[in-house]
């Protein structure tokens, strides 16, 4: 029953996003601000983690095939496909669920508790559309870009680790990276990134927007935002993989 109540209210919030903006320029300004917060603000952490994820994938795969009949250039091939299909979208978005999701949830929660949302509502602003819409739209725009960067850097991280560890030469690695490339995987990565971006921002916004209480409840809402969006990201990861691969 409680689940149905929350699900209904969540769907209602999403539908409210499609209402006509009061002043397009103000929404655009907010959209640009959110793109900066979510995209530029997360670039360094996503880049840093992607390099290491790619590096670890390369070392672990090289270690597994050492001494076997499988050629070492496969390291590049495996790192590329793993990064594109799974690690770049999923790890980046799980990371962003923590960073961006908790941020959105606590920002909206504070606005609710400090009556800023009431103030906007009394002014006649469509608060769900103005406060939640630009966040979701910005995330859906910039998170796929971050994921593409993450995939590139992950592959590059694999090359560095492979070379430094003496497992594979740059030429061999490049051979693997270019071998049997399937463009469909890029489409899949993009779909995952868009779905995950929508999920993590909308769930976080929902948790923050309907907070009641004070500081403790804002903290709890942030925790719920991260936990629920992480679970949903992994569930959607499975569904997309099962449906599209």
């Amino acid at each position, binding site marked *: 029953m409680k689940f149905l109540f929350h699900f209904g209210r969540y769907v209602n919030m999403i539908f409210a996003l499609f209402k006509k903006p*009061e*002043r397009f*320029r*103000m929404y655009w300004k907010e959209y640009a601000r959110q793109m900066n917060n979510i995209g530029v603000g997360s670039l360094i952490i996503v880049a840093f983690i992607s390099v290491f994820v790619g590096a670890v994938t390369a070392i672990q795969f090289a270690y597994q095939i050492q001494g076997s009949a499988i050629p070492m250039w496969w390291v590049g091939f495996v790192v590329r496909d793993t990064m594109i299909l799974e690690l770049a979208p999923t790890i980046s978005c799980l990371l962003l669920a923590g960073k961006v999701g908790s941020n959105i949830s606590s920002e909206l929660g504070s606005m609710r508790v*400090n*009556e*800023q949302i*009431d*103030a906007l*509502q*009394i*002014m*006649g*602003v469509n608060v769900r559309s103005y406060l939640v819409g630009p966040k979701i739209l910005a995330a859906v725009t910039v998170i796929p870009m971050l994921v593409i960067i993450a995939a590139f850097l992950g592959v590059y991280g694999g090359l560095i680790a492979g070379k430094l560890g003496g497992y594979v030469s740059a030429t061999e690695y490049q051979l693997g990276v270019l071998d049997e490339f399937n463009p469909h995987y890029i489409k899949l990565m993009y779909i995952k990134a868009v779905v995950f971006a929508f999920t993590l921002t909308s769930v976080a916004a929902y948790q923050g927007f309907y907070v009641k209480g004070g500081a403790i409840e804002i903290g709890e809402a942030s925790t719920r935002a991260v936990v629920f969006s992480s679970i949903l990201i992994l569930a959607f990861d499975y569904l997309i993989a099962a449906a599209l691969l």
Partner: protein
Amino acid sequence: MIELQDIYKSFGENDVLKGITTEFLPGKTNLIIGKSGSGKTVCIKCSIGLFEVNKGAVIYDGRNFTIMSKSEKKSVRKEIGMLFQGNALFDSMTVEENVRFPLDMFSKKTKAEKNARVDEVLERVELEEAHKKYPSEISGGMQKRVGIARAIVLQPRYLFCDEPNSGLDPQTALVIDELIKEITIEQNITTVINTHDMNSVMGIGDNILFIHEGHKHWQGSSEEILTSRNQELEDFIFASEFLKKLKNQQI
């Protein structure tokens, strides 16, 4: 003028407002007073539509707000300014941006006209020097004045103030009271103030509504309070020995 007609509001089993009927007059400071938990804030929130009433009607100059569609309510809300207890200023915006926000969102004025209007209202609340400061960089009294400036920037017909003096020292509270009173008269606004500050009640109370246990218990002016024979009102207003002595002297 705002009319409340037989307003009822409950939350679950808890009946908060039990048939409030009153009028808030234009150009006057209309005060809602009562003990904590008596229903003052609920009364204001019902008036502006933040809470739906269970029964009764809220009428804004002949327009029944209670039965309006969402878009009609939105257009009435553009005529309403509100000063919140905690000011509700946007932390990420400067004082100027806070005041400018309603203009940017709703006004079709040019940039120069908007700038002029922002300067005008900030000057009116004596905050000319605070344009570029953030809410966290100014005092509580200044934040209240920014809240007032934001509330009046669109030249509202109705102004609601929820505990405008809470958290302020008595001197600053008087300045805020005077400012609200002056703006109310200057712009002929229907101002509704929810307070339990006795200085405000006696200083600027043109039309005072006393709510007790969800009922309208008394209504009159600050002068009439002194001669009222209402026991609950007297107990509330003259709660301290000091005020009781003062009242006896006054009479």
